[in-house]
């Protein structure tokens, strides 16, 4: 591994740490200063909100690390909601069947993205902006401006049922299991190393024997399937399938991924940082809302954080670099300077 890559990893590792520390700090300070943050209900609401974002952020992290992006995720979610709703109306009354159909459909929608990006070599930004509109349009074809909301209570309560003895929804276990799988793939397998390599330099990665096309194709398939899974959760949590479900969610996901320390240019990032940032954004937003911070201020805060996330890791890297040089060039420099 090159000197530069090691430094990048170092800076990155510390960015995940920054996120974790920030998360704990916000949680502690919030609990002490804002009435309600310490309550179990608060954490239930934060978790319910974070689940769909986390589900989609897992594959998004890997995609952005390869230097690509998938902006169609929220539209896949919306389309899944409408298909689940329509199938229910048509009499499909088995939840496992609905989930299976949704995952399959999500995978196909993701494969379409993957095909355009890897098969025709088109930029994923352009392709997925296109399918963002296309899939949302299809959602309106399925349900129009209707809503399907008459699901069995057993289904809708199962989506938000808490773990025994807690207020945290059990679905968090599904998210955790999937997070472990994605983390192992990214951080402990040759495939994962290949993803970083192609993000740094796709050409070089290809020469080194990494199958760039295949890897990217399957990442888009995974992204589609995970977005569909989030769509099923969304439908049941809100007991409402509508064509405009989850509009704009792709930006929340991309924001969490970037704040989590993943470089928008690819090649850098860690899953732990992203998961921490998903939680951080959720806790911060809900805590500030509880503290009566107006919506407009919240938007400004989220925006500023995003800018900080793009600048932050670079500054950390730069400072380390300067420190390292100073140490190696002038070992006798006084600590006060």
């Amino acid at each position, binding site marked *: 591994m090159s000197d530069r890559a090691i430094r990048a990893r170092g800076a990155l590792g510390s960015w995940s740490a920054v996120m974790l520390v920030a998360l704990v700090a916000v949680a502690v300070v919030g609990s002490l200063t804002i*009435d309600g943050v310490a309550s179990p209900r608060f954490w239930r609401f934060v978790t319910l909100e974070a689940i769909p974002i986390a589900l989609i952020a897992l594959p998004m992290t890997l995609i952005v690390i390869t230097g690509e992006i998938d902006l169609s995720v929220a539209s896949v979610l919306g389309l899944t909601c409408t298909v689940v709703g329509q199938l229910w109306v048509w009499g499909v009354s088995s939840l496992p069947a609905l989930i299976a159909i949704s995952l399959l459909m999500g995978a196909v929608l993701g494969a379409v993205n993957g095909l355009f990006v890897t098969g025709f070599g088109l930029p994923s930004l352009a392709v997925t902006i296109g399918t963002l509109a296309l899939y949302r349009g299809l959602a309106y074809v399925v349900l129009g401006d209707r809503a399907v909301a008459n699901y069995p209570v057993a289904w809708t309560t199962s989506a938000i049922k808490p773990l025994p003895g807690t207020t945290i929804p059990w679905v968090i276990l599904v998210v955790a299991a999937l997070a472990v799988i994605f983390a192992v793939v990214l951080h402990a397998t040759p495939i994962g190393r290949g993803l970083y390599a192609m993000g740094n330099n796709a050409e070089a990665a290809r020469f080194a024997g990494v199958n760039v096309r295949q890897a990217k194709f399957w990442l888009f398939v995974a992204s589609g399937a995970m977005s569909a899974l989030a769509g099923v959760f969304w439908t049941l949590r*809100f*007991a409402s399938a509508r064509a405009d479900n*989850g509009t704009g969610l792709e930006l929340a996901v991309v924001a969490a991924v970037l704040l989590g320390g993943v470089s928008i240019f690819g090649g850098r990032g860690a899953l732990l940082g992203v998961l921490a940032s998903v939680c951080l954004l959720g806790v911060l937003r*809900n805590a500030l809302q509880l503290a009566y911070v107006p919506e*407009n201020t919240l938007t400004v805060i989220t925006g500023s954080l995003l800018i900080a996330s793009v600048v932050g890791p670079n500054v950390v890297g730069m400072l380390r670099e300067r420190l390292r040089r100073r140490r190696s060039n002038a070992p006798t420099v006084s600590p006060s300077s």
Partner: protein
Amino acid sequence: MRAGTTQVRLLALAAMAALALATAACAEDTPAGPGPGGTGAMKSGLKIAFLPKQVNNPYFTTSDNGGKAAVEEFGGKYTETGPSESSPSAQVSYINTLSQQKTDVIVVSANDKDAICGALNEARQAGAKVVTFDSDTNASCRDLFINQATAEGIAKIQIKLISQAIGADGGEIAILSATANATNQNAWIEMMKAELTKPEYAKLKLVDTVYGDDKDEKSFTETQALLAKHPSLKGIISPTTVGVAAAARYLSGSTFKGKVQLTGLGTPNQMRSFVKDGTVKAFALWNPADLGYLAAYAGGALASGMITGKEGDKFKAGKLGEFTVGKDATVLLGDPFTFTASNIEQFNF
């Protein structure tokens, strides 16, 4: 004239005296007897939160300011919160927050009548009263719905306004609607047809109904086509804000301006210039400020235990007077509000 003013002053004095007495009664913590507008008195210090479909939207800013005025009148604490984009489930997180803040009353205009149901019911279990306005949720998720207007009320005012604009001679009229399958539009059109059978409107003849699909361009060209097809057309009714603004824009730039009358449901900001240049004499809508004002009073009455939301419950809503809860726990604001050149300047939404 002068005598009238004195009488009004006396009345105002009497009202203030009554109010002072009521306040004194509260301060002494003696239970107030059942007044004419329900039992008990409004509690002070109630936390009343407005949750519009979208913040920074002039319509909701107007309605919420009406609510704010009411809350201040009865000594409550007013807050407004909500999403900056009106996506269906975005309100859920705000409802959860309001519930955690132990808000007494949540006054909400629902983006999605189903998606926020669970959160609203959870808030109600935690002790909040829920009043919907402008856009209702499922009836099982709220205590009261403040209905801005009935289909009948809207139909009546539309026919009345077009009839007044055209004059006693009457003539051919047409309707520019939104989409052909819009439930509310079709209900209004049916009611308008029924209204037209009344003897006082015998000289008005509905000759056509066209659909602009709530799209500006389509509404514009449909107006154009309508006038070409019916040369003796005297008036157009467009009971949709997009349609009436597009039709007004076409008329104001054509030779039909002032000759073919137009009315409909519109917002003052969209219609201001057309009212000023004489294209439109009057149009209707409800007054969002009154809607918010009434919703706040209804919420206050619920949270004070003065009403429960059952049919026949009566409560006082400040300057708007007394209201009665109708069936399905709804309260009707009243007849639609008519905007004309003389009052349009008072509104900004």
